[in-house]
């Protein structure tokens, strides 16, 4: 069943060339359509500036589109105003790239995770937050600590707990492992996979790392200059890429001997 549907989304930004130069239009997202099935992980790959993050943010309503429609569970999100969207926000959450920038240094971990539920007027917020922290593999002592007491990998676990505590259906993972060391990156990928199975989540996994996307996705979409140039099954796209750009991307990955 379709959980998320993206229909002809367009987003242009106006950019000025120099201080007095003429304005030019950057087509960040240029008529993109696809859908994500329930329980599926869709990998979205592309190089910096291709529009993948802009698209992600439009889907979870952190940015407004110029035109096009977004559906979540059959409901048209693009037709709703700010207040009408509020109750739906608990169903879609985001995990950001940099766990150092996305946690407030002055708020304790427990409070940061419980905050989402408090906004949603959940009376059981504290207990649920503690349980969620345990689920992502943090010790119970983490609850009353501050972000600086944790390493990068642990902080990303905190961000994951914060995203999942409202029990959303859809998670936008925007480069969640790009700033982590390889040995820790593998831990977080495993955690995301486990949580998906346990909680029945659906991911849109944005990354520039083709190895990571290969490992976590069911289907993969390749984006270039605001357009999705190819979308296919994980196995198919990596073994038999059709689009020239997809081929170039996959060909650029440096081998580590694991392929031999």
């Amino acid at each position, binding site marked *: 069943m379709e959980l998320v549907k993206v229909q002809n989304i367009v987003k242009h930004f106006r950019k000025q060339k120099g201080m007095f130069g003429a304005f030019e239009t950057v087509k960040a997202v240029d008529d993109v359509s696809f859908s994500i099935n329930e329980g599926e992980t869709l990998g979205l790959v592309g190089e910096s500036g291709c529009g993948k993050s802009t698209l992600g943010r439009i889907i979870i309503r952190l940015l407004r589109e110029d035109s096009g429609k977004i559906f979540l569970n059959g409901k048209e999100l693009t037709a709703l105003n700010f207040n009408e969207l509020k109750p739906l926000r608990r169903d879609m959450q985001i995990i950001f790239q940099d766990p150092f920038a996305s946690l407030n240094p002055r708020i304790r971990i427990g409070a940061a995770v419980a905050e989402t539920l408090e906004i949603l007027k959940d009376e059981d917020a504290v207990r649920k937050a503690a349980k969620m922290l345990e689920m992502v593999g943090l010790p119970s002592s983490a609850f009353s600590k501050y972000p600086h007491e944790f390493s990068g990998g642990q902080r990303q676990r905190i961000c994951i707990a914060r995203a999942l505590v409202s029990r959303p259906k859809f998670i936008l993972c925007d480069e969640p492992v790009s700033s982590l060391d390889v040995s*820790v990156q*593998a831990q977080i990928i495993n955690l995301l996979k486990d949580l998906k199975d346990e909680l029945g989540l659906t991911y849109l996994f944005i990354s520039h790392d083709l190895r990571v996307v*290969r490992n976590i996705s069911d289907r993969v979409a390749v984006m270039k200059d605001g357009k999705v140039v190819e979308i296919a099954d994980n196995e198919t796209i990596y073994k038999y890429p059709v689009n020239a750009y997809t081929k170039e991307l996959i060909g650029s990955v440096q*081998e580590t001997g694991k392929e031999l």
Partner: protein
Amino acid sequence: MTENALLSIRGLHTYFFPGKAVGRAVEGVSFDVGSSESIGLVGESGCGKSVTALSILRLVSRPGKIVSGEIIFERGGKKEDMLLLSEQEMTKVRGGEISMIFQEPFTSLNPVFRVEYQVGESAKLHLGIKGEALRALVMETLSGAGIKDAERVADSYPHELSGGLRQRVMIAMALISGPKLLIADEPTTALDVTVQAQILDLLADIRLKRKLSVIMVSHDLGIINRICDRVNIMYSGRIVESSPKKEIFSNPLHPYTAGLLKSIPSLSKIEKRLPAIPGNVPDPFDPPAGCRFHPRCQKAMDICKKTEPGETVVDGRMVKCWLYK
């Protein structure tokens, strides 16, 4: 020490002293770089790979300090310890005999000078050429770094160039005075994969053409595989394994090397669970006792917790692990 080594580092210790704490960033690192050999320094963040690279050029700034060790470099037929050179002599070495490329090409270029001036500066200083001859050399070096319209790029400011072009400019800047050794610190980390592949091709090509020795610092084993002959794996301020490239990828000796290789997702098949290394990279201010890797090592024995292993040579490869004693 190998007789024909261009650079040999012996027992390098670089510590950081912020306030009362002591951060042992590099502790007893030794390795050689032969002429036209390419060495990889691999490790995760905080393992001391960049500090080792900076120590070679004595660029470690306060509160960091090179505490002890020798860095022997062959200059004009003589072997000299760079740690004993005067600051004036060091200026001749930096950019002249040993050059460095940094990770972020944007922050390493000066935004208020044109490319021509910045690339030519080193040649002016080290080779003493100027005017038309200098411009010609700049153009030649820029073209050599794979820049097609060298004229336009030379007249540009850094902000007018793309990331890939900027890194090519950085490479030209490093090469213009004809150094013998090039230190590249994560030269492609900030770039997109397709551009990264181009820059790696360029480096591989230049290395052969100029018979350059290269020290490549990276956390990415794919990049190391592309460029290097020999790989040094660093963990918590030490080299824990040093092997020729082929062998390190097919038969890693140290459990950390093996774990690192396994935790990289494969392109050819999907693994249900990635074999991750448990735990985190150790804090240089509070490293564990014994072998620095033992809290994360699945093969840890009692001795690993108490005593740090020394160097063992296995089939001509160096490893620091009790498994091979």
